[in-house]
């Protein structure tokens, strides 16, 4: 039996969130849906535009380029992030008493403000005298022009993002320690090799966590903005080749909204992004049903 007093108290406590939801989420979403059918530049009142904005997106080569760049970055970044984080977490798991120290070292890069990270990696990734190509040189490789060759700009950005793999690795480490030890013992008794143990015990045991990071990092990568914007956009008029290779969807949205003041068009771009992200997330949820085992958590 829910008492009226208790219900009233409950509603009062959650009221701030309800107000915020209406003011900063649901309201704005409806507002932007409405705006997406108008032309609006802040100076003059919005003019109805019907489906013009959406039709323009279909023919907008920069929007298509931006979407492609973003999908390409995501497809490269997310799998590499997950594999690297898993590898590092497995190492930390076996590190014994020094695990705490190495966990700190791996986690620290995630604290770096992305603007500082981007400024630093502009120099580290520099094709002529950057430290990364110098290191590749020790092993006899000639590194690419990470910051100027359009073909290598996105891989360079992925490489930079992987420096902040630490938080995902720490999350996996926590998941690894929750996999019951008996399962490994049983596998060993069956004569399973370490590789088979990984595939048949470890991976199923942490599949829920891996799946969570897949979804969250896909959503985040599809909105990649700060590092690429810092490196290739802003006050500097970027040379077309570099600018186009690093033109991600949210950067384009940002330019249309706050550079060109095309609020209606930017709102249509935002809704397209929302639908793309929702569709990809729904697909991932559907696929996960076949692969994810939910581990016991208590």
């Amino acid at each position, binding site marked *: 039996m829910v008492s009226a007093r*208790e*219900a*009233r*108290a*409950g509603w009062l*406590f*959650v*009221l*701030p*969130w309800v107000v*915020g939801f209406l003011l*900063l*989420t649901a*309201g*704005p979403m409806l*507002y*932007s849906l409405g*705006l997406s059918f108008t032309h609006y530049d*802040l100076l003059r009142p919005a003019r109805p535009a019907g489906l013009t904005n959406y039709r323009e997106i279909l023919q907008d080569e920069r929007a298509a380029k931006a979407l492609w760049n973003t999908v390409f970055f995501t497809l490269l970044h997310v799998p590499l992030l997950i594999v690297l984080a898993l590898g590092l977490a497995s*190492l930390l798991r076996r590190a014994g008493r020094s695990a705490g120290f*190495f966990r*700190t*070292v791996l*986690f*620290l*890069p995630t*604290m*770096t*403000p992305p*603007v500082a990270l981007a*400024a*630093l990696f502009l*120099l*580290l990734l520099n094709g002529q005298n950057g*430290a990364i190509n*110098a290191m590749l040189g020790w092993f006899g490789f000639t590194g690419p022009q990470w910051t100027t060759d359009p073909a290598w700009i996105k891989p360079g950005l992925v490489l930079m993002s992987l*420096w902040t793999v*630490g938080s995902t690795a*720490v999350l996996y480490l926590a998941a690894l320690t929750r996999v019951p030890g008996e399962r490994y013992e049983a596998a060993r008794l069956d004569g399973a090799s370490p590789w088979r143990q990984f595939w048949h015990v470890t991976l199923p045991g942490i599949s*829920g966590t891996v799946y*969570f990071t897949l*979804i*969250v990092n896909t959503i985040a990568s*599809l*909105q990649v*903005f700060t590092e690429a*914007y*810092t490196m290739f956009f802003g*006050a*500097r008029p970027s040379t077309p080749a570099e600018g186009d290779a690093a033109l991600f969807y949210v950067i384009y*949205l*940002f330019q249309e*909204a*706050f550079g060109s003041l095309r*609020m209606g068009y930017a*709102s249509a771009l*935002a809704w397209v*992004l*929302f639908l793309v*992200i929702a569709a990809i997330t729904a697909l991932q949820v559907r696929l996960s049903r076949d692969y994810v085992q939910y581990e016991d958590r208590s």
Partner: protein
Amino acid sequence: MTRRAPVLLALVAVGVLFAYPFWWLVSASLKDRSHVFDNALLPAPVSPQNYTEVWRAVPLLAWVGNSVAVGVAAAVAATVSSAVVAFGFARFRFRGRTVLFGLVLATMMLPAAVTMVPVYLEWHAVGLATTQIPLWAGNLFGSAFYVFLLRQFFLGLPAEVFDAARVDGAGPWRQFASIALPLARPGLIVVFVFELKAAWTDLIRPLIYLREPELYTLPRGLKAVLDRFGQGGEAQWELVMAASVVATVPMILLFLVAQRYFVRGVVTQRVEE
């Protein structure tokens, strides 16, 4: 012990690789203009005047002050409001609670880029679009991830303490303020440091809202320094590196004092659907 040796060796290699960019950054910030690209581990000659020079060229102190003010306001607002909301979900039964909490979780998946334009237009409509207020005031309404996280903390508290307090005549607000809050202190610290970091490192909102350089937060200021002294033309990368160190060091210190709270926050991140 021998079994562990290859693991430790690999970790040392990885550790060096992950620490190196920090070392490079600090070292470059202390090199003079002709040596900033030389990849030498130690600066020679040492040029600490980079810091005073960038200090003179841009209002760095004002930016640090702005970042502290905005960061603390954002963190306090997020912590207090999320705690209130989380307590409502954890402690009281009311009709619609399950649906509403589902909505909270759903907004976590909502891409922020989608509300960027309309929220700006709202601030524009109330005449605050070029102030620092939009950088933190949105946090006054509780934020989904923190509500989720603090609800977990509150659910972990024994119900008996609240029942006892109620028998003693404590109303809902006193149960929250004098019992739940002190007991959930670790959770509150997690939220505070997470949001402090988020506000301190954010670029996109300062880019949208701040026009006057005196109002810039550090990331926005650092972007201006990069545009002017980096690729912009004047080519004084040693100043860009010095400003980058200034923006980064507070976060490193924050992590070193609050490491376990950051780790705890990351580990609690996972939401069961």
